[in-house]
């Protein structure tokens, strides 16, 4: 399978890459993680859905610039407490972590700290971009968590912050794009990159038929080399 490219093809598509960022959505049950995600990946708002079992995957390819394509693979985890033992396993291989709370639920906001602690136990903190998402801003009248509170918490814990609504399509795109941009920025700085045994960021070969595929080993190796050489230059 993996030798499906001839040598000329490899040469032709060698310099063009795009990356897969794995993003995980965590937070209390019923804060609207799945709605948020499906609004982003499917463009539709689903009011009620069955509770997520374990984890669901959603994919969307975004263009950060004309030559930077990012495949966002977003893991939508089950918020129910009983699934925590499972979702716990998924944190490690992610490059970004969105902790979602419901602005109408004080409890969900209070649990953010627990989610953050749990996530930080599983990952190397410098490898992950954390974002705090205050969801359901369409229910402004029932708001119990102020924007300032959210901002303060995010700032104190070195997280990005945004308030969204899947129902009225508010800041959905912005949330995921700004996370992707932050990850890419850190990649450019050399703070993040491809690592063996870690699937948070993957390099994929750029080819129309491969937009949904995952790259072969050669592209990834080349990219690793490039990363190495860039680090050498920086030091």
């Amino acid at each position, binding site marked *: *399978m*993996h030798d*499906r490219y*001839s*040598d*000329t*093809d490899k040469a032709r598509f060698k310099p063009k890459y795009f990356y897969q960022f794995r993003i995980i959505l965590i937070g209390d049950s019923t804060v609207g993680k799945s709605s948020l995600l499906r609004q982003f990946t499917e463009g539709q708002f689903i009011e009620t859905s069955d509770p997520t*079992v*374990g*984890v669901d*995957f959603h*994919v969307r390819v975004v263009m950060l610039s004309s030559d930077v394509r990012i495949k966002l*693979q977003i*893991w939508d985890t089950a918020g129910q407490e*009983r*699934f925590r*033992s*499972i979702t*716990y*396993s*998924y944190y*490690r*291989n992610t490059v970004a972590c969105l902790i979602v709370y419901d602005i109408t639920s004080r409890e969900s906001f209070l649990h953010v700290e627990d989610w953050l602690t749990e996530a930080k136990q599983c990952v190397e903190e410098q490898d992950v971009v954390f974002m705090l998402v205050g969801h359901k801003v369409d229910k402004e009248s029932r708001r119990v968590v102020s924007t300032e509170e959210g901002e303060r918490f995010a700032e104190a814990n070195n997280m990005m912050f945004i308030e969204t609504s899947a129902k009225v399509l508010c800041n959905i795109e912005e949330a995921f794009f700004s996370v992707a941009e932050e990850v890419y920025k850190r990649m450019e700085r050399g703070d993040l990159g491809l690592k063996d045994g870690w*699937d948070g960021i993957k390099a994929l070969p750029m080819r129309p*038929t*491969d937009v*949904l*595929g*995952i790259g072969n080993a050669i592209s990834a190796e080349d990219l690793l080399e490039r990363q190495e050489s860039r680090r050498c230059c920086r030091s």
Partner: protein
Amino acid sequence: MDNNLRKKDTDGASSDEEESFESADEGEEGTANSNPPSATSAETANGDSTSKITADNEEDTLGKSQLKLDDNASSETTQLEEEVVETVAQRSTDMDAQKGDIPCEDNNKVPSFTDEIQLETEVSNMIHAKKDGDHFSQNVGEDDAKESGEIKNETTQLLPEDDDRVENRQLDESGGKFTNLGADELTDADENQEHCQVKSEPSDDSLVEDVRPDSVANKPAAQEMQSTSGGWGWVGWTSMLSQATASVTSGLSSVIETVETSLGVPDPQEMARKVKAEEKAVKQKREEEERNTKVTGDDKDAEVKNGANESFLSSFGVSNLTNVVQTTGKELVSGGLDALEFIGKKTMGVLAEGDPGLRQKRKTLAGSGPNLSQILKEAKDASETAAAEASGEEPRPVIDLFSEFDKFQGVAHLEALEMLSRDSEAELESRILDLTEDELAAVKPLLRAVEEVFHIDDDADDDGNEGDDFKAELDENIKSLNLPFAADKLVATREKAREWIQSCVQEQDSSLGSREGLDIYSSAVSSLAELTARTVELFHKLTELLLHQGNQTAETSSLVRAQSARKMGDVVLEEISALSTQFAGCLNTATDDSPNPDFVSSLITTLYLDSSTSADYLRNSLKLLRPVMQLSSLNESSAS
């Protein structure tokens, strides 16, 4: 040219301004003179006759000068020769330039002479100019008279301007080309002065008188200065061209002198006298002429000259002037382009003389351009052809199993399953370490049994159940799992694939070649990938549910679940095998009708390869279930 432009701008300006641009006006005249193509008949005739005369005279002079040199092989001549040697030596280096210069002057036929002839002529003429100046000028005059009696009169009409121009040239040091021509005609004027009706009372004497003493005094020096003045003009113009240009410019001035001397330049004092008288005569002549030709407009050049000269003296029609200025402007541009082109050529010529290797270098440099690009192009074509040959003429499959598998989230589920399996394995190990020996002995058979369930012999391919058994077997096993999930998606995928194959077979039966090999292959790969991905997803969900149940007591034992899962896996593996065979059958039918049977055959091979890859994914995911099932079993035994 600048002058010309400025003139255009200031056409309608006050007389004061016009006065300040007098020299500019003169420049235009010079240009007008030097560009007969659009000049009037009189001017053209003048140009023609002048050059003819020059040619004739040079031939004449050549013969005579050789004779003279032979006759007067005395010390006197030698001395004179020596005096000239310097000049000649310098000029000989400029001969090339001279040769090229001349074509720039319209209707001038001098270039037909070789350098040698010109050089010789020059030498002899310089000698004769000093010794026998009168004699020569007389000779020339006679020739002139014979050959172009009538034209000469016309020529003289234009002379005053020429003279003025020469003076102006000396003063404002304009282009050598113009000086050259002016001198050319000046000689004519000298020769032809006898034919002129000399009356020395021009109406606008005041100014002419002001100018004259200067011009007359400068006249002898002017002849010598011309080379420098012309040169300075050019050098100032194109200083960056440095040496090459200098050669060109001195070449220009040497042409002037050649022409002058070949015609026999009179003694400077004599000439000054003649010029003075002639200028007066011409002034008068011009007045008459003006009156005659002003209205006709035929003699545009005469008009512009007059206008230019007298614009600040008389109320000469400005519109007429503008008209002519425009004409001369065009001529100037074309003439200027000619000059530039010539300078370029000449510069290369001069550079090549100084550097014999230049031509070779240029050839190499210029030659490498097309060659290099051609080489690159050929190389590109060659590599493309090679690439096309390497990849084969057949169309390549646009679809591949791995990307299809990923499209259906198979990769993500497999990776998630791996994570859970790894974590389960780690937990299992730690739990086993915590067990007492007795406890371990108690659970060991169970763990072994579960491990045995997931022992998969990769080659085991028992072609057994087919058809509708798939759904039944799957449902049965899912039921036995006793977990809250269904295999609906998996079943639907399988049904879809079966339906596709069925319709494909029907179509192929009714009409040959109705299905493209590539289409069948794409559908096959997509079906296999989806089926595999759904199964992996099923196993992933199963794992999640098992782990989720955790310590909860279950009605169904993990061993039973493990066996059910294993059976499910086997059912799907069989289905994959069966589907591959059926798709291959469709492809095989397509091979018979395909224009490219080899390609379709290769697709069959690829399809079987994809089938085995799908089976590998499935077996791997099944194996990943083992630690999960073992952990679940351990939980059961410890709970019970």
